[in-house]
Protein backbone atom coordinates (compact mmCIF):
# COMPACT_ATOMS: atom_id res chain seq x y z
CA UNK A 1 0.00 0.00 0.00
CA UNK A 2 1.32 3.43 -0.85
CA UNK A 3 1.11 6.44 1.41
CA UNK A 4 -2.15 8.28 1.75
CA UNK A 5 -0.81 11.30 -0.10
CA UNK A 6 -0.13 9.35 -3.25
CA UNK A 7 -3.80 8.83 -3.97
CA UNK A 8 -6.75 9.99 -1.89
CA UNK A 9 -7.80 6.40 -1.21
CA UNK A 10 -4.63 4.39 -1.65
CA UNK A 11 -5.16 2.74 1.72
CA UNK A 12 -8.38 1.14 0.46
CA UNK A 13 -8.52 -2.60 -0.10
CA UNK A 14 -7.87 -3.49 -3.73
CA UNK A 15 -10.51 -5.09 -5.96
CA UNK A 16 -8.64 -8.37 -5.58
CA UNK A 17 -8.68 -8.14 -1.77
CA UNK A 18 -12.32 -7.04 -1.67
CA UNK A 19 -13.53 -9.85 -3.94
CA UNK A 20 -11.55 -12.44 -1.96
CA UNK A 21 -12.99 -11.24 1.35
CA UNK A 22 -16.54 -11.11 -0.02
CA UNK A 23 -16.27 -14.57 -1.60
CA UNK A 24 -15.02 -16.07 1.67
CA UNK A 25 -17.78 -14.38 3.66
CA UNK A 26 -15.32 -12.27 5.71
CA UNK A 27 -16.72 -9.03 4.31
CA UNK A 28 -20.22 -8.20 3.10
CA UNK A 29 -20.77 -6.58 -0.29
CA UNK A 30 -23.34 -4.31 1.34
CA UNK A 31 -20.70 -2.90 3.73
CA UNK A 32 -18.25 -2.36 0.89
CA UNK A 33 -20.89 -0.52 -1.09
CA UNK A 34 -21.93 1.69 1.83
CA UNK A 35 -18.33 2.92 2.14
CA UNK A 36 -18.47 3.96 -1.53
CA UNK A 37 -21.89 5.59 -1.19
CA UNK A 38 -20.83 7.53 1.92
CA UNK A 39 -17.81 8.94 0.06
CA UNK A 40 -20.04 9.84 -2.89
CA UNK A 41 -22.39 11.65 -0.53
CA UNK A 42 -19.48 13.55 1.00
CA UNK A 43 -17.59 14.67 -2.13
CA UNK A 44 -19.68 14.13 -5.28
CA UNK A 45 -21.17 17.62 -4.95
CA UNK A 46 -17.75 19.21 -5.51
CA UNK A 47 -16.27 16.63 -7.91
CA UNK A 48 -19.25 15.71 -10.17
CA UNK A 49 -17.81 12.38 -11.33
CA UNK A 50 -21.25 10.92 -12.07
CA UNK A 51 -24.13 11.67 -14.40
CA UNK A 52 -26.17 9.14 -12.43
CA UNK A 53 -25.58 7.37 -9.10
CA UNK A 54 -27.38 4.02 -8.91
CA UNK A 55 -27.54 3.73 -5.10
CA UNK A 56 -30.69 1.62 -4.81
CA UNK A 57 -29.86 -0.67 -7.74
CA UNK A 58 -26.36 -1.14 -6.30
CA UNK A 59 -27.73 -1.98 -2.85
CA UNK A 60 -29.97 -4.60 -4.44
CA UNK A 61 -27.01 -6.11 -6.35
CA UNK A 62 -24.82 -6.11 -3.23
CA UNK A 63 -27.55 -7.91 -1.26
CA UNK A 64 -27.78 -10.55 -4.00
CA UNK A 65 -24.01 -11.05 -3.88
CA UNK A 66 -24.13 -11.52 -0.10
CA UNK A 67 -27.09 -13.90 -0.41
CA UNK A 68 -25.20 -15.97 -2.98
CA UNK A 69 -22.21 -16.28 -0.64
CA UNK A 70 -24.48 -17.19 2.28
CA UNK A 71 -26.08 -19.86 0.10
CA UNK A 72 -22.74 -21.42 -0.71
CA UNK A 73 -22.50 -20.04 -4.27
CA UNK A 74 -19.52 -18.14 -5.72
CA UNK A 75 -20.60 -14.75 -7.13
CA UNK A 76 -17.42 -14.44 -9.22
CA UNK A 77 -14.02 -12.79 -9.55
CA UNK A 78 -15.34 -9.29 -8.84
CA UNK A 79 -17.73 -10.27 -6.05
CA UNK A 80 -18.96 -7.14 -4.31
CA UNK A 81 -16.47 -4.80 -6.00
CA UNK A 82 -17.94 -1.31 -6.65
CA UNK A 83 -17.48 -0.37 -10.32
CA UNK A 84 -18.29 2.89 -12.13
CA UNK A 85 -19.23 2.85 -15.82
CA UNK A 86 -18.50 5.58 -18.34
CA UNK A 87 -21.83 6.93 -19.52
CA UNK A 88 -21.24 5.86 -23.14
CA UNK A 89 -21.70 2.19 -22.19
CA UNK A 90 -25.24 0.91 -22.69
CA UNK A 91 -27.06 -0.24 -19.56
CA UNK A 92 -30.46 -1.84 -20.06
CA UNK A 93 -33.26 0.35 -18.75
CA UNK A 94 -30.76 2.79 -17.18
CA UNK A 95 -30.24 6.24 -18.69
CA UNK A 96 -27.19 6.39 -20.99
CA UNK A 97 -26.42 9.89 -22.25
CA UNK A 98 -22.85 10.20 -23.57
CA UNK A 99 -23.09 13.52 -21.67
CA UNK A 100 -25.09 14.84 -24.62
CA UNK A 101 -28.46 16.59 -24.72
CA UNK A 102 -29.29 14.54 -27.80
CA UNK A 103 -29.40 11.31 -25.74
CA UNK A 104 -30.70 12.82 -22.49
CA UNK A 105 -33.26 10.46 -20.97
CA UNK A 106 -32.46 7.57 -23.35
CA UNK A 107 -32.71 4.14 -21.73
CA UNK A 108 -31.04 1.49 -23.90
CA UNK A 109 -32.96 -1.74 -24.54
CA UNK A 110 -29.82 -3.84 -23.93
CA UNK A 111 -26.61 -4.09 -21.86
CA UNK A 112 -23.13 -3.69 -23.35
CA UNK A 113 -21.19 -6.97 -23.40
CA UNK A 114 -18.71 -5.61 -20.84
CA UNK A 115 -21.58 -4.68 -18.52
CA UNK A 116 -22.96 -8.23 -18.79
CA UNK A 117 -19.53 -9.70 -18.06
CA UNK A 118 -19.01 -7.49 -15.01
CA UNK A 119 -22.45 -8.38 -13.68
CA UNK A 120 -21.76 -12.08 -14.24
CA UNK A 121 -18.54 -11.70 -12.20
CA UNK A 122 -20.42 -10.26 -9.21
CA UNK A 123 -19.43 -6.59 -9.65
CA UNK A 124 -21.67 -3.89 -8.16
CA UNK A 125 -22.36 -1.04 -10.60
CA UNK A 126 -22.51 2.20 -8.60
CA UNK A 127 -23.17 4.70 -11.36
CA UNK A 128 -22.63 6.18 -14.81
CA UNK A 129 -19.71 8.59 -15.04
CA UNK A 130 -19.37 11.95 -16.75
CA UNK A 131 -17.41 12.37 -19.98
CA UNK A 132 -16.71 14.88 -22.71
CA UNK A 133 -19.77 14.74 -24.98
CA UNK A 134 -19.54 11.56 -27.09
CA UNK A 135 -16.01 11.09 -25.67
CA UNK A 136 -14.70 14.08 -27.66
CA UNK A 137 -12.31 15.99 -25.44
CA UNK A 138 -9.37 15.88 -23.07
CA UNK A 139 -10.78 17.61 -19.97
CA UNK A 140 -14.41 16.49 -19.39
CA UNK A 141 -15.36 20.16 -19.79
CA UNK A 142 -17.32 19.34 -22.97
CA UNK A 143 -20.07 17.58 -20.99
CA UNK A 144 -23.59 18.94 -21.52
CA UNK A 145 -24.17 18.35 -17.80
CA UNK A 146 -21.23 20.34 -16.43
CA UNK A 147 -17.55 19.53 -15.93
CA UNK A 148 -15.91 17.03 -13.56
CA UNK A 149 -13.29 18.38 -11.13
CA UNK A 150 -9.95 16.75 -10.34
CA UNK A 151 -10.17 15.19 -6.84
CA UNK A 152 -6.54 16.21 -6.15
CA UNK A 153 -7.28 19.90 -6.82
CA UNK A 154 -10.80 21.04 -7.63
CA UNK A 155 -9.55 23.98 -9.71
CA UNK A 156 -7.94 21.54 -12.18
CA UNK A 157 -9.46 19.33 -14.88
CA UNK A 158 -9.48 15.55 -14.38
CA UNK A 159 -8.46 15.00 -18.01
CA UNK A 160 -10.76 13.38 -20.50
CA UNK A 161 -12.74 12.13 -22.06
CA UNK A 162 -13.21 9.51 -19.31
CA UNK A 163 -12.65 12.15 -16.61
CA UNK A 164 -15.61 10.99 -14.50
CA UNK A 165 -14.32 7.41 -14.34
CA UNK A 166 -10.78 8.53 -13.44
CA UNK A 167 -12.09 10.91 -10.77
CA UNK A 168 -14.44 8.25 -9.35
CA UNK A 169 -11.53 5.86 -8.76
CA UNK A 170 -9.20 8.61 -7.48
CA UNK A 171 -11.84 9.82 -5.00
CA UNK A 172 -12.62 6.31 -3.76
CA UNK A 173 -16.20 6.43 -5.11
CA UNK A 174 -15.56 3.09 -6.82
CA UNK A 175 -12.72 0.55 -6.64
CA UNK A 176 -12.73 0.09 -10.42
CA UNK A 177 -14.11 1.96 -13.41
CA UNK A 178 -14.53 1.43 -17.13
CA UNK A 179 -13.62 3.99 -19.73
CA UNK A 180 -13.19 4.13 -23.48
CA UNK A 181 -10.03 5.26 -25.25
CA UNK A 182 -10.09 6.61 -28.81
CA UNK A 183 -6.99 8.84 -28.65
CA UNK A 184 -5.99 8.66 -24.98
CA UNK A 185 -9.34 9.03 -23.21
CA UNK A 186 -8.47 6.42 -20.56
CA UNK A 187 -4.72 6.98 -20.17
CA UNK A 188 -4.62 10.81 -20.02
CA UNK A 189 -7.29 11.18 -17.28
CA UNK A 190 -5.68 8.28 -15.40
CA UNK A 191 -2.38 10.21 -15.45
CA UNK A 192 -3.99 13.49 -14.35
CA UNK A 193 -5.93 11.81 -11.51
CA UNK A 194 -3.08 9.59 -10.28
CA UNK A 195 -4.66 6.21 -11.07
CA UNK A 196 -3.86 3.30 -13.41
CA UNK A 197 -5.55 3.37 -16.84
CA UNK A 198 -5.13 0.96 -19.70
CA UNK A 199 -6.11 0.75 -23.38
CA UNK A 200 -6.08 -2.87 -24.59
CA UNK A 201 -5.07 -4.11 -28.05
CA UNK A 202 -7.72 -3.20 -30.61
CA UNK A 203 -10.26 -6.04 -30.69
CA UNK A 204 -9.40 -7.56 -27.30
CA UNK A 205 -12.46 -6.17 -25.49
CA UNK A 206 -15.91 -6.30 -27.08
CA UNK A 207 -17.41 -2.96 -28.07
CA UNK A 208 -20.98 -4.19 -28.40
CA UNK A 209 -22.94 -1.56 -26.47
CA UNK A 210 -20.16 1.06 -26.48
CA UNK A 211 -21.65 4.05 -28.28
CA UNK A 212 -19.41 4.52 -31.31
CA UNK A 213 -17.08 7.51 -31.82
CA UNK A 214 -14.13 6.43 -34.00
CA UNK A 215 -14.71 2.80 -34.87
CA UNK A 216 -11.18 1.98 -36.04
CA UNK A 217 -9.75 3.48 -32.82
CA UNK A 218 -12.21 2.94 -29.91
CA UNK A 219 -11.37 0.44 -27.17
CA UNK A 220 -12.87 -0.11 -23.71
CA UNK A 221 -10.42 -0.44 -20.83
CA UNK A 222 -9.99 -0.41 -17.04
CA UNK A 223 -9.26 2.25 -14.41
CA UNK A 224 -7.97 1.10 -11.01
CA UNK A 225 -5.74 2.00 -8.08
CA UNK A 226 -3.29 -0.77 -8.88
CA UNK A 227 -1.75 -2.56 -11.84
CA UNK A 228 -2.95 -5.93 -10.50
CA UNK A 229 -6.56 -4.71 -10.32
CA UNK A 230 -6.37 -3.46 -13.92
CA UNK A 231 -5.10 -6.91 -14.94
CA UNK A 232 -8.00 -8.62 -13.20
CA UNK A 233 -10.59 -6.31 -14.77
CA UNK A 234 -9.08 -6.81 -18.24
CA UNK A 235 -9.27 -10.59 -17.81
CA UNK A 236 -12.90 -10.44 -16.65
CA UNK A 237 -14.16 -8.25 -19.50
CA UNK A 238 -11.88 -9.28 -22.37
CA UNK A 239 -12.25 -12.12 -24.82
CA UNK A 240 -14.14 -12.92 -27.98
CA UNK A 241 -17.69 -11.70 -28.53
CA UNK A 242 -19.58 -12.89 -31.61
CA UNK A 243 -21.68 -9.71 -31.34
CA UNK A 244 -18.74 -7.44 -32.28
CA UNK A 245 -17.34 -8.01 -35.78
CA UNK A 246 -14.00 -6.44 -34.77
CA UNK A 247 -13.60 -8.72 -31.73
CA UNK A 248 -10.43 -10.82 -31.90
CA UNK A 249 -11.02 -14.57 -31.68
CA UNK A 250 -8.12 -15.06 -29.29
CA UNK A 251 -7.44 -15.67 -25.61
CA UNK A 252 -6.88 -12.64 -23.39
CA UNK A 253 -3.14 -12.57 -22.55
CA UNK A 254 -2.59 -14.05 -19.07
CA UNK A 255 -1.47 -10.79 -17.50
CA UNK A 256 -2.26 -11.59 -13.83
CA UNK A 257 -0.06 -14.69 -13.65
CA UNK A 258 2.97 -12.78 -14.99
CA UNK A 259 2.69 -9.59 -12.91
CA UNK A 260 5.60 -10.51 -10.63
CA UNK A 261 7.96 -11.64 -13.38
CA UNK A 262 9.98 -8.42 -13.26
CA UNK A 263 11.84 -6.76 -16.13
CA UNK A 264 15.26 -8.40 -15.88
CA UNK A 265 16.67 -8.64 -19.40
CA UNK A 266 13.67 -6.87 -20.91
CA UNK A 267 14.46 -4.32 -23.61
CA UNK A 268 12.79 -0.94 -22.99
CA UNK A 269 12.88 1.94 -25.51
CA UNK A 270 12.35 5.53 -24.38
CA UNK A 271 10.66 7.31 -27.31
CA UNK A 272 12.85 10.34 -28.24
CA UNK A 273 10.05 12.16 -30.07
CA UNK A 274 7.94 12.22 -26.89
CA UNK A 275 10.65 13.65 -24.61
CA UNK A 276 11.34 17.04 -26.19
CA UNK A 277 9.22 19.85 -27.54
CA UNK A 278 5.76 20.16 -26.04
CA UNK A 279 6.54 18.08 -22.95
CA UNK A 280 6.71 19.89 -19.60
CA UNK A 281 10.20 19.55 -18.04
CA UNK A 282 8.88 18.05 -14.78
CA UNK A 283 6.92 15.38 -16.68
CA UNK A 284 9.95 14.56 -18.85
CA UNK A 285 12.09 14.30 -15.70
CA UNK A 286 9.67 11.84 -14.10
CA UNK A 287 9.66 9.77 -17.29
CA UNK A 288 13.47 9.66 -17.25
CA UNK A 289 13.33 8.62 -13.61
CA UNK A 290 10.98 5.79 -14.62
CA UNK A 291 13.44 4.67 -17.31
CA UNK A 292 16.26 4.70 -14.75
CA UNK A 293 14.25 2.65 -12.29
CA UNK A 294 13.57 0.02 -14.98
CA UNK A 295 17.29 -0.09 -15.74
CA UNK A 296 18.00 -0.53 -12.02
CA UNK A 297 15.54 -3.45 -12.04
CA UNK A 298 17.58 -5.17 -14.75
CA UNK A 299 16.00 -3.93 -17.98
CA UNK A 300 18.10 -2.82 -20.92
CA UNK A 301 16.97 0.78 -21.48
CA UNK A 302 17.86 2.90 -24.50
CA UNK A 303 16.42 5.88 -26.32
CA UNK A 304 14.71 4.99 -29.59
CA UNK A 305 13.38 7.13 -32.42
CA UNK A 306 9.87 6.41 -33.74
CA UNK A 307 9.91 9.20 -36.33
CA UNK A 308 6.35 9.04 -37.71
CA UNK A 309 4.69 9.56 -34.32
CA UNK A 310 5.15 13.31 -34.77
CA UNK A 311 2.46 13.14 -37.48
CA UNK A 312 0.07 11.27 -35.20
CA UNK A 313 -1.84 14.31 -34.00
CA UNK A 314 -2.64 15.56 -37.51
CA UNK A 315 -3.59 12.10 -38.75
CA UNK A 316 -5.78 11.44 -35.72
CA UNK A 317 -7.66 14.73 -35.98
CA UNK A 318 -8.67 13.80 -39.52
CA UNK A 319 -9.37 10.07 -39.06
CA UNK A 320 -11.31 10.30 -35.78
CA UNK A 321 -13.59 13.18 -36.91
CA UNK A 322 -14.16 11.44 -40.27
CA UNK A 323 -15.34 8.31 -38.49
CA UNK A 324 -17.31 10.38 -35.97
CA UNK A 325 -19.12 12.28 -38.71
CA UNK A 326 -20.36 8.95 -40.08
CA UNK A 327 -21.14 7.38 -36.68
CA UNK A 328 -23.04 10.43 -35.43
CA UNK A 329 -25.22 10.61 -38.54
CA UNK A 330 -27.54 8.21 -36.68
CA UNK A 331 -28.70 10.98 -34.33
CA UNK A 332 -31.59 12.20 -36.41
CA UNK A 333 -34.49 12.38 -33.95
CA UNK A 334 -36.24 9.38 -35.52
CA UNK A 335 -35.64 6.30 -33.39
CA UNK A 336 -34.29 7.47 -30.03
CA UNK A 337 -33.14 10.48 -28.09
CA UNK A 338 -34.11 14.10 -28.57
CA UNK A 339 -36.44 15.37 -31.29
CA UNK A 340 -37.12 19.01 -32.09
CA UNK A 341 -40.46 19.07 -33.92
CA UNK A 342 -40.54 20.76 -37.33
CA UNK A 343 -42.91 20.72 -40.34
CA UNK A 344 -40.82 18.35 -42.48
CA UNK A 345 -38.51 15.46 -41.67
CA UNK A 346 -35.49 17.29 -43.13
CA UNK A 347 -36.08 20.34 -40.97
CA UNK A 348 -36.74 18.10 -37.95
CA UNK A 349 -33.37 16.35 -38.38
CA UNK A 350 -31.43 19.60 -38.74
CA UNK A 351 -33.21 21.31 -35.82
CA UNK A 352 -32.66 18.25 -33.62
CA UNK A 353 -28.92 17.97 -34.37
CA UNK A 354 -28.41 21.72 -34.02
CA UNK A 355 -30.07 21.80 -30.59
CA UNK A 356 -28.77 18.41 -29.40
CA UNK A 357 -25.04 18.54 -30.09
CA UNK A 358 -22.54 20.76 -28.26
CA UNK A 359 -19.80 22.84 -29.90
CA UNK A 360 -16.97 20.28 -29.83
CA UNK A 361 -19.16 17.58 -31.37
CA UNK A 362 -20.27 20.01 -34.09
CA UNK A 363 -16.63 20.96 -34.76
CA UNK A 364 -15.59 17.35 -35.17
CA UNK A 365 -18.58 16.41 -37.31
CA UNK A 366 -17.84 19.35 -39.62
CA UNK A 367 -14.10 18.61 -39.68
CA UNK A 368 -14.81 14.98 -40.56
CA UNK A 369 -17.40 15.88 -43.17
CA UNK A 370 -14.86 18.26 -44.73
CA UNK A 371 -12.04 15.69 -44.67
CA UNK A 372 -14.29 13.15 -46.42
CA UNK A 373 -15.83 15.53 -48.96
CA UNK A 374 -15.11 15.52 -52.68
CA UNK A 375 -11.94 17.41 -53.53
CA UNK A 376 -10.44 17.05 -50.04
CA UNK A 377 -10.63 13.30 -49.46
CA UNK A 378 -7.21 12.52 -50.97
CA UNK A 379 -5.47 15.53 -49.43
CA UNK A 380 -6.76 14.90 -45.91
CA UNK A 381 -8.47 11.60 -45.07
CA UNK A 382 -6.55 9.52 -47.64
CA UNK A 383 -3.25 10.99 -46.51
CA UNK A 384 -4.07 10.46 -42.83
CA UNK A 385 -4.68 6.75 -43.51
CA UNK A 386 -1.25 6.51 -45.13
CA UNK A 387 0.32 8.18 -42.10
CA UNK A 388 -1.23 5.40 -40.01
CA UNK A 389 0.75 2.92 -42.08
CA UNK A 390 3.94 4.92 -41.46
CA UNK A 391 3.31 5.04 -37.72
CA UNK A 392 2.64 1.34 -37.48
CA UNK A 393 5.72 0.62 -39.58
CA UNK A 394 7.92 2.74 -37.32
CA UNK A 395 6.46 1.04 -34.24
CA UNK A 396 7.09 -2.38 -35.81
CA UNK A 397 10.70 -1.41 -36.45
CA UNK A 398 11.11 -0.27 -32.83
CA UNK A 399 9.53 -3.47 -31.52
CA UNK A 400 12.12 -5.40 -33.52
CA UNK A 401 14.63 -4.17 -30.93
CA UNK A 402 12.49 -3.50 -27.86
CA UNK A 403 9.86 -5.44 -25.91
CA UNK A 404 8.05 -2.32 -24.68
CA UNK A 405 8.36 1.44 -25.19
CA UNK A 406 8.16 4.21 -22.61
CA UNK A 407 6.95 7.83 -22.75
CA UNK A 408 5.05 10.41 -20.72
CA UNK A 409 1.28 9.81 -20.79
CA UNK A 410 0.29 13.48 -20.89
CA UNK A 411 2.52 16.45 -21.80
CA UNK A 412 1.71 18.13 -18.46
CA UNK A 413 0.03 17.55 -15.12
CA UNK A 414 -3.63 18.56 -14.67
CA UNK A 415 -4.26 22.05 -16.05
CA UNK A 416 -6.63 24.81 -14.86
CA UNK A 417 -10.29 24.43 -15.68
CA UNK A 418 -11.29 26.73 -18.52
CA UNK A 419 -7.70 27.36 -19.64
CA UNK A 420 -7.97 25.53 -22.99
CA UNK A 421 -11.68 25.49 -23.84
CA UNK A 422 -11.52 28.47 -26.22
CA UNK A 423 -8.63 27.01 -28.24
CA UNK A 424 -9.44 23.47 -29.50
CA UNK A 425 -5.96 22.94 -30.98
CA UNK A 426 -4.26 23.57 -27.61
CA UNK A 427 -6.67 21.02 -26.08
CA UNK A 428 -5.84 18.47 -28.81
CA UNK A 429 -2.11 18.75 -28.03
CA UNK A 430 -2.80 16.90 -24.75
CA UNK A 431 -3.17 13.71 -26.79
CA UNK A 432 0.29 13.91 -28.38
CA UNK A 433 1.74 10.84 -26.65
CA UNK A 434 -1.39 8.68 -26.49
CA UNK A 435 -2.75 8.95 -30.05
CA UNK A 436 -0.12 6.85 -31.89
CA UNK A 437 -1.14 3.65 -30.04
CA UNK A 438 -4.76 4.08 -31.14
CA UNK A 439 -3.75 4.70 -34.75
CA UNK A 440 -1.65 1.51 -34.67
CA UNK A 441 -4.19 -0.57 -32.70
CA UNK A 442 -1.61 -1.28 -30.00
CA UNK A 443 -2.08 -1.55 -26.20
CA UNK A 444 -0.71 1.12 -23.86
CA UNK A 445 -1.20 2.01 -20.22
CA UNK A 446 -0.56 4.83 -17.78
CA UNK A 447 0.96 4.20 -14.36
CA UNK A 448 1.18 6.88 -11.64
CA UNK A 449 4.84 7.79 -11.14
CA UNK A 450 5.23 10.47 -8.52
CA UNK A 451 4.31 14.11 -8.82
CA UNK A 452 5.18 17.14 -10.91
CA UNK A 453 6.55 20.48 -9.77
CA UNK A 454 3.02 21.54 -8.81
CA UNK A 455 2.52 18.50 -6.56
CA UNK A 456 -0.02 16.95 -8.94
CA UNK A 457 0.19 13.34 -10.20
CA UNK A 458 2.35 12.40 -13.20
CA UNK A 459 1.61 9.32 -15.30
CA UNK A 460 4.18 7.35 -17.27
CA UNK A 461 3.04 5.45 -20.35
CA UNK A 462 4.12 1.91 -21.21
CA UNK A 463 3.45 0.96 -24.84
CA UNK A 464 3.56 -2.53 -26.37
CA UNK A 465 2.94 -4.20 -29.73
CA UNK A 466 -0.42 -5.83 -30.53
CA UNK A 467 -1.25 -8.46 -27.87
CA UNK A 468 1.88 -7.43 -25.95
CA UNK A 469 -0.13 -6.96 -22.73
CA UNK A 470 2.05 -9.35 -20.70
CA UNK A 471 5.37 -7.46 -21.01
CA UNK A 472 3.43 -4.19 -20.71
CA UNK A 473 1.84 -5.19 -17.37
CA UNK A 474 5.15 -6.61 -16.10
CA UNK A 475 6.81 -3.26 -16.77
CA UNK A 476 3.91 -1.36 -15.22
CA UNK A 477 4.11 -3.50 -12.07
CA UNK A 478 7.81 -2.68 -11.60
CA UNK A 479 7.13 1.05 -12.06
CA UNK A 480 4.25 0.91 -9.59
CA UNK A 481 6.39 -0.81 -6.96
CA UNK A 482 9.17 1.75 -7.44
CA UNK A 483 6.76 4.70 -7.23
CA UNK A 484 5.26 3.34 -4.01
CA UNK A 485 8.72 2.73 -2.56
CA UNK A 486 9.73 6.28 -3.46
CA UNK A 487 6.57 7.72 -1.89
CA UNK A 488 7.31 5.90 1.36
CA UNK A 489 10.88 7.10 1.66
Amino acid at each position, binding site marked *: MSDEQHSPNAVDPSAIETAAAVRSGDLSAVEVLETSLTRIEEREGEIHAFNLVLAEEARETARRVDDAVAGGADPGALAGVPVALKDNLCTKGVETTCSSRILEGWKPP*YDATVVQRLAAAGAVMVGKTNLDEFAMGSSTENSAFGPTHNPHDLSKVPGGSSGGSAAAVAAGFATLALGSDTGGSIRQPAALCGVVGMKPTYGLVSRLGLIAFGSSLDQIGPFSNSVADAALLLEVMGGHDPGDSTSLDTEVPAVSTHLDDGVSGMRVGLISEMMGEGIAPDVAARTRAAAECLAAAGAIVEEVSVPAVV*YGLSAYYLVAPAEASSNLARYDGVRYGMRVEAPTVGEMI*EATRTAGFGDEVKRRI*MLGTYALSAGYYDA*FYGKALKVRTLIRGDFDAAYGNFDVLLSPTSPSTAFDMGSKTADPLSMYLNDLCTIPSNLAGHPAMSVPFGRGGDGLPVGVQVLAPALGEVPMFRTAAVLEAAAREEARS
Partner: protein
Amino acid sequence: MTEQSSPITAAEVTKVAKLARLTLTDAELERFTHQLGDILGHAADIEALDLTDVEPMARPIPLTNVFRPDEPGEPLDRDDVLSVAPAVEDNQFRVPPSLGEDS
Protein backbone atom coordinates in the same frame (compact mmCIF):
# COMPACT_ATOMS: atom_id res chain seq x y z
CA MET B 1 4.55 24.50 -41.88
CA THR B 2 2.85 26.25 -44.81
CA GLU B 3 1.05 29.43 -43.78
CA GLN B 4 -1.69 29.90 -46.34
CA SER B 5 -4.27 32.70 -46.22
CA SER B 6 -6.85 30.46 -44.54
CA PRO B 7 -7.07 26.68 -44.76
CA ILE B 8 -10.89 26.83 -44.85
CA THR B 9 -13.28 29.63 -45.81
CA ALA B 10 -16.61 30.63 -44.26
CA ALA B 11 -18.34 29.52 -47.45
CA GLU B 12 -16.79 26.04 -47.13
CA VAL B 13 -17.84 25.81 -43.47
CA THR B 14 -21.40 26.78 -44.47
CA LYS B 15 -21.42 24.02 -47.08
CA VAL B 16 -20.01 21.43 -44.66
CA ALA B 17 -22.57 22.40 -41.99
CA LYS B 18 -25.37 21.87 -44.52
CA LEU B 19 -23.98 18.44 -45.46
CA ALA B 20 -23.79 17.55 -41.75
CA ARG B 21 -27.36 18.81 -41.11
CA LEU B 22 -26.32 21.57 -38.71
CA THR B 23 -27.54 25.18 -38.63
CA LEU B 24 -24.92 27.77 -37.65
CA THR B 25 -25.51 31.29 -36.36
CA ASP B 26 -23.32 34.04 -37.82
CA ALA B 27 -21.22 34.11 -34.65
CA GLU B 28 -20.78 30.33 -34.75
CA LEU B 29 -19.81 30.46 -38.41
CA GLU B 30 -17.06 32.95 -37.65
CA ARG B 31 -15.79 31.04 -34.61
CA PHE B 32 -15.88 27.60 -36.26
CA THR B 33 -14.18 28.90 -39.42
CA HIS B 34 -11.33 30.23 -37.31
CA GLN B 35 -11.04 27.07 -35.16
CA LEU B 36 -11.31 24.60 -38.05
CA GLY B 37 -8.69 26.70 -39.85
CA ASP B 38 -6.31 26.25 -36.90
CA ILE B 39 -6.79 22.49 -36.91
CA LEU B 40 -6.43 22.13 -40.68
CA GLY B 41 -3.39 24.42 -40.49
CA HIS B 42 -1.79 21.92 -38.13
CA ALA B 43 -2.61 19.14 -40.60
CA ALA B 44 -0.46 20.93 -43.20
CA ASP B 45 2.44 18.83 -41.85
CA ILE B 46 0.98 15.66 -43.36
CA GLU B 47 -0.42 17.46 -46.39
CA ALA B 48 3.22 18.21 -47.26
CA LEU B 49 4.39 14.57 -47.04
CA ASP B 50 5.00 12.57 -50.21
CA LEU B 51 3.18 9.31 -49.51
CA THR B 52 2.71 8.10 -53.08
CA ASP B 53 3.95 4.57 -52.45
CA VAL B 54 2.41 4.11 -49.00
CA GLU B 55 -0.66 1.93 -48.60
CA PRO B 56 -3.53 3.43 -46.61
CA MET B 57 -4.49 1.78 -43.32
CA ALA B 58 -8.21 2.14 -42.56
CA ARG B 59 -8.24 -0.14 -39.52
CA PRO B 60 -5.78 -1.98 -37.27
CA ILE B 61 -6.96 -5.48 -38.18
CA PRO B 62 -8.15 -6.63 -41.60
CA LEU B 63 -11.91 -7.00 -41.97
CA THR B 64 -13.02 -10.58 -42.38
CA ASN B 65 -16.47 -11.94 -43.01
CA VAL B 66 -17.99 -13.16 -39.77
CA PHE B 67 -20.44 -16.00 -40.33
CA ARG B 68 -22.81 -17.69 -37.94
CA PRO B 69 -25.34 -20.48 -38.43
CA ASP B 70 -28.46 -19.15 -40.14
CA GLU B 71 -30.68 -19.59 -37.11
CA PRO B 72 -32.96 -17.03 -35.45
CA GLY B 73 -31.30 -15.33 -32.48
CA GLU B 74 -32.79 -13.37 -29.61
CA PRO B 75 -34.09 -10.08 -31.06
CA LEU B 76 -34.53 -6.90 -29.03
CA ASP B 77 -38.04 -6.60 -27.64
CA ARG B 78 -40.10 -4.41 -30.00
CA ASP B 79 -41.94 -2.67 -27.19
CA ASP B 80 -38.64 -1.87 -25.43
CA VAL B 81 -37.28 -0.32 -28.61
CA LEU B 82 -40.42 1.67 -29.46
CA SER B 83 -40.82 2.87 -25.89
CA VAL B 84 -37.72 5.09 -26.19
CA ALA B 85 -38.59 6.55 -29.60
CA PRO B 86 -39.66 10.21 -29.82
CA ALA B 87 -42.92 9.36 -31.65
CA VAL B 88 -44.60 6.06 -32.48
CA GLU B 89 -47.75 5.04 -34.34
CA ASP B 90 -49.04 1.53 -35.10
CA ASN B 91 -45.78 -0.08 -33.90
CA GLN B 92 -43.71 2.13 -36.22
CA PHE B 93 -41.50 5.19 -35.81
CA ARG B 94 -43.52 8.28 -36.69
CA VAL B 95 -41.81 11.20 -38.49
CA PRO B 96 -43.05 14.45 -40.05
CA PRO B 97 -43.80 14.40 -43.83
CA SER B 98 -40.79 14.53 -46.12
CA LEU B 99 -42.64 16.35 -48.91
CA GLY B 100 -41.80 20.00 -49.12
CA GLU B 101 -38.21 19.39 -48.13
CA ASP B 102 -35.77 21.65 -49.98
CA SER B 103 -38.64 23.23 -51.90
